[in-house]
């Protein structure tokens, strides 16, 4: 479960071994999610919480394309999350009440917003990239607060009812939390397969190469600017879709999720989960974040203080996050299993065979 499955000479000698479309961790994750409504209440959770967890999983997976894969620290991702929610609401109120149409609209508008921002930030990296994304995020937040006639200002858009989803002869009402939960899981499943393919494609390789060495990627002949712009845009599409789902589940869209404070949450969630070292890090991070918000939030109003302390501990003692800890544990276990056989001697001396 690394950030991607490395390509080895086995691929050359054992014929084409394509990366599977569906993998075991994928089935495990989706299986756990599908069974969630049956055990949620017996462990003291409730159905609605599951919806938010899954929405955040999607949001975090999309965000990790930037942070984990391309190494771009974006601090304004909340803007596209919020834009998605507004786009869903406006589409629902003015154009179409079909959730799929409105959701597509949310993804498109989120992606469009990100594409604009991408034009401004794609030639930057590191701290300048981070600062530019904060600034752009704040612009969107401010606009959403001030344009009352479109977004409803600080109150946001209300009256976004959970419409029913018609799939041919089948009509599903999304009013019920469990039905909505399965709808959100279905969207997540499609997105996970897409993202898994993406990170193993040549494009996914280019993203990682840019993270490791932008200059070399340029000298090998890659269009670094366009690649970065494309991934900022794509990640905005996923933020937009998850924002649209949030609008369905909360039956409203409001500017809170767009401010810099909320944009920071996604960064913290992805880092705690281990997005830097694993495809699944953001998924773990989303669970930890939402559940911590709920459980700690029920105990104390200052839950963010405790979550912040948790974040600091992770950065200090386990910078690769929960997924990283798991990988270390597995590696250690593997070494113990092989303990019977003597360790292979490294054949490499300094200036080994050239």
């Amino acid at each position, binding site marked *: 479960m690394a950030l991607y499955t*490395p*390509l*080895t*000479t086995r*691929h*050359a000698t054992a*014929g*084409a*071994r*394509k*990366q599977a479309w569906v993998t075991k961790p994928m089935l495990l994750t989706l299986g756990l999610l599908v069974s969630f409504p049956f055990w949620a209440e017996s462990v003291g959770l409730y159905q609605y919480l599951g919806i938010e967890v899954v929405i955040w999983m999607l949001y975090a997976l999309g965000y990790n394309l930037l942070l984990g894969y391309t190494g771009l620290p974006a601090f304004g991702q909340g803007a596209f999350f919020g834009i998605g929610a507004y786009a869903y609401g406006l589409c629902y109120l003015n154009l179409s009440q079909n959730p799929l149409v409105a959701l597509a609209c949310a993804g498109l508008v989120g992606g469009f917003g990100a594409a604009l921002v991408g034009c401004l930030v794609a030639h930057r990296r590191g701290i300048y990239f981070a600062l530019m994304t904060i600034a752009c995020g704040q612009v969107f937040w401010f606009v959403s607060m001030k344009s009352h006639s479109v977004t409803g200002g600080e109150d946001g858009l209300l009256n976004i009812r959970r419409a029913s989803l018609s799939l041919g002869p089948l009509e599903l009402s999304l009013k019920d939390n469990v039905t909505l939960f399965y709808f959100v899981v279905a969207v997540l499943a499609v997105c996970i397969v897409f993202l898994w*393919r*993406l990170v*193993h*494609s*040549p*494009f*996914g*390789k*280019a993203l*990682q*190469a840019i993270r*490791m*060495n932008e*200059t*070399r*990627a*340029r*000298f*090998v*002949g*890659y*269009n*670094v600017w*366009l*690649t970065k712009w*494309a991934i900022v845009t794509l990640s905005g599409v996923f933020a937009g879709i998850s924002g649209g789902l949030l609008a369905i589940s909360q039956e409203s869209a409001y500017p809170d999720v767009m401010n810099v404070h909320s944009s920071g949450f996604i960064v913290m969630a992805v880092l705690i989960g281990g997005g830097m070292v694993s495809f699944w890090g953001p998924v773990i991070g989303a669970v930890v974040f939402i559940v911590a918000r709920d459980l700690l939030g029920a105990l104390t109003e200052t839950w963010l203080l405790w979550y912040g302390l948790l974040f600091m501990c992770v950065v200090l003692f386990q910078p690769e996050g929960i997924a990283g800890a798991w990988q270390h544990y597995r590696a250690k276990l593997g070494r113990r299993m092989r303990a019977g056989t003597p360790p292979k001697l490294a*054949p*490499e*001396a*300094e*200036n*080994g*065979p*050239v």
Partner: protein
Amino acid sequence: MALFEAKNLSKRFGDRVVLEDISLKFEQGQLSGIMGPNGAGKSTCFNVLTGHFPPDRGTVLLEGEDITGLSPRKIAQKGVARSFQIMSLFDEFTALENVLFALPEVRNVGFNMFRDVAGDTATVDKALKIVEQVGLAASADVRSSSLPYGQRRALEIAVALAAQPRVLFLDEPTQGMGADGRGRLLELILGLKRQFTIVMIEHDMDFLFSLADEVSVIHWGQVIAQGTPDELRADPWVSRANLGTKRNA
């Protein structure tokens, strides 16, 4: 007509003139060397030729086509590849992946989000051949950050080779290597000679002279001498500039 030609290049950084009216010609199939003392402008010259920065004046021609001021990406796509003096690999990729990623076949489907990198056996085979060509077959699956220094140097060249370049620029390939590693590197570059047009910056005079067909000596941003290794060995200016018999201790 020379394959690669630079005419009257000048480059300054602030008020420091780094290149002053430099003209160079690299012939097809030859191994040309550029040498000179520290700070003579060799690396800047390389950076201008491969598009890292545009020159202030002058033109760069590839087979007669003006490529002055094009971006590194465009120049790379036209078939000019380079290695770096300071190691510049994709550290978390394996040796094989480093080379694979640099292949034009992979680059040209760069925006294809669905094709599988691992799926195309012919491409992977090709990458593997290049890895073998530089003697890294046994380490193909090792992350490049875990390779020993000499092997990383060789991989650096392999990444440049992957582009099947018309001109291959090598920036101080022996940098930081011991005598043993140099020997192996010498054999590697000898193996590439005549297959590629190579331009090499090198500090180590013996190393360069045993490989190059023709050498240009740069000092104070100008070409002070040009010729075959034998001619240059006899040139008093060259020994003075490089070995520092009088002024540069």
